[in-house]
């Protein structure tokens, strides 16, 4: 019925599509002017066709990931089919209309994002700066995760995301500068030596593109770690950007691989996938046992000389210290460096004297704190 009217008046179609684009943007789809223009072009190319075709066409223009597609389905349903009420509201004069949609946007927004982390990172840095001035940043960067106020959590998360991303970028740059030159670059060599009759006298070299290490991380999510694991998960997610191969595991009493949940997703979606994991967050700890499981099943992921092994745990182990030591020693033989981050190390009078921790110490190359943002960012120099 509505489609019929649309075919009669192409201008009406165009207007509808612009309205739909705005509608979708309000609901979180990344639709800018460019996409809106694309949508208009697409609908013009499709001409007067079935609703289905229009939907698929708009979807291919407006979406750029699977998650977008799912969101698009909802928006499209609401706007064209289910939302007669919505549609009639849109017939009202324009000024009121936009204000109305602003308000609904706020509401749906807070409902849709499951955590305080919000959307894909594109707009976050500005948001964080607006929210937190330099001094607040500094205070929060030094604050222990465990003693954090609930109100500071959101701000800290945004700062953390920004800093983690910066760190990843810095790491990439440092590598590019520091590598020595590699193969002869024939192209430039010839160019330089044409005047000498092509005899390659002045050699030109091409830098070998550096190959980042592999990173294998194990994050302790047992009860004693729970104030920290929220941030550490985000930290691990940010690290992914830098390393070519990252294998990520969670453990408490047993080991779960979460690599596939991290891969190719936005942080928001990755966290949602994690929250659906069957493994219980905040249970007991069996570090030695989990490491044994790792060695049995995933040892082939360790490439000696190329792999960094990163373990994030407070070292409270309910198992035998000897098991932990033996398994960690096995890991150590296969990797370039073992890094253990322990949040408790941030406490003034902490001594790594618990059975597990002291047994593990001889096999650790870098033992560092991980109780606040600063300590996590300090890890940069070991990566």
């Amino acid at each position: 019925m509505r489609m019929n009217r649309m075919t009669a008046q192409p201008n009406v179609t165009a207007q509808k599509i612009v309205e739909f684009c705005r509608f979708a943007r309000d609901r979180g789809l990344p639709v800018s002017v460019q996409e809106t223009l694309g949508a208009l072009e697409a609908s013009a190319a499709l001409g007067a066709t079935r609703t289905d075709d229009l939907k698929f066409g708009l979807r291919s223009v407006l979406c750029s990931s699977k998650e977008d597609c799912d969101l698009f389905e909802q928006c499209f349903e609401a706007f064209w089919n289910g939302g007669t009420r919505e549609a009639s509201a849109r017939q009202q004069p324009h000024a009121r209309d936009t204000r109305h949609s602003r308000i609904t946007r706020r509401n749906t927004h807070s409902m849709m994002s499951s955590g305080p982390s919000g959307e894909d990172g594109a707009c976050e840095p500005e948001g964080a700066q607006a929210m937190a001035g330099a001094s607040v940043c500094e205070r929060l960067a030094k604050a222990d995760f465990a003693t954090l106020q609930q109100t500071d959590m959101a701000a800290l998360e945004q700062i953390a995301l920004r800093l983690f991303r910066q760190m990843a970028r810095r790491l990439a740059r440092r590598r590019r500068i520091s590598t020595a030159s590699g193969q002869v670059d024939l192209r430039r060599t010839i160019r330089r030596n044409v005047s000498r009759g092509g005899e390659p006298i002045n050699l030109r070299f091409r830098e070998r593109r550096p190959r980042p290490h592999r990173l294998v991380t194990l994050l302790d999510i047992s009860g004693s770690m729970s104030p920290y694991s929220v941030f550490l998960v985000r930290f691990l997610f940010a690290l992914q950007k830098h390393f070519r191969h990252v294998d990520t595991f969670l453990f408490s009493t047993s080991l779960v691989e979460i690599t596939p949940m991290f891969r190719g997703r936005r942080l928001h979606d990755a966290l949602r996938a994690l929250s659906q994991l069957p493994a219980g967050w905040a249970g007991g700890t069996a570090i030695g046992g989990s490491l044994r499981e790792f060695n049995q099943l995933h040892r082939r992921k360790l490439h000696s000389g190329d792999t960094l092994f990163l373990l994030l745990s407070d070292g409270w182990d309910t198992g035998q210290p000897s098991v932990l030591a033996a398994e960690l020693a096995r890991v150590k033989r296969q990797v370039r460096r073992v890094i253990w981050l322990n949040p408790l190390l941030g406490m003034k009078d902490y001594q790594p004297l618990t059975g597990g921790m002291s047994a593990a110490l001889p096999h650790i190359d870098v033992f560092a704190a991980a109780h606040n943002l600063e300590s996590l960012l300090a890890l940069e120099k070991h990566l």
Partner: protein
Amino acid sequence: MGTSEHSPSSVGQDVDAVVAGFERQGYVIDRALATAIFLVTKLRKPILVEGHAGLGETELAKALASLLGTPLIRLQCYEGLDVSSAVYEWNYQKQLLAIKIEEQSKQTVEEKERHIFSREFLLERPLLQSIQFEDQSPVLLIDEIDRADEAFEAFLLELLSDFQITIPEMGTIHAKHVPYVVLTSNRSRELGDALKRRCLYQWIDYPSLEKEMRIVRTRLPGIEERLAQQVVAYVHAVRALNLSKPPGVAETLDCAEALMVLGKKQFDEQAIHETMGCISKSVEDNAKIKNAGVSTLLN
């Protein structure tokens, strides 16, 4: 760039024609993808096809090329792919030889230089080839773009917006006919926003039971209906097991073909073991399938 001056009749004027055309090529296409492809031919935008491995992303480009009756140019991306293997490279050996041969000639250095940096010494790689066609637009398949690094992605972005390539020694080459560009990704990493925005987007999911049956029938016309049904149902059950590498349509076809070669009439426990290698690609997945038991996998 002229958009509609060159839209081949074989694709036709609407989405139905695209669907029919692809079916003729033996490619079972759903309406959503057909609509996107239709828009590719009309708007001349690149399309980014994402999905799990083995769901026919690459086949799509091949089918599109043969449907349009144009050549297919394929660039397989990999880690460390650089401009010299994707765009162009000078034929160094030939250049060195040419310099030697011309040593005694009376040419000036400038003339020599101009000669050895002429087209004769240029090795054209896929991206350069794709913009050099005189009479028609080829299909350019950029396969598994997620494997290439971000630097290459940025370069590609530039190419996809201008369709021109600058070779310092020769000048800028503009495309006479803008290629139809199909990019595929298996989502091993997230692509840059800029690249995604430039493309139409299509997510390919695992096919429904009916669609997969149609694919099996189309690709393996000789298969017995009952066997095909059993295999497809089995693969669907396996996909529900949460394997580290769930089988795609390619694996279904492999498995069905293997059964035909083995002369099986019936898909049973024995057959599951014999065709395990077609479906599961790791020890852990093997174990998961075995643990799931025959009764859940065959019903």
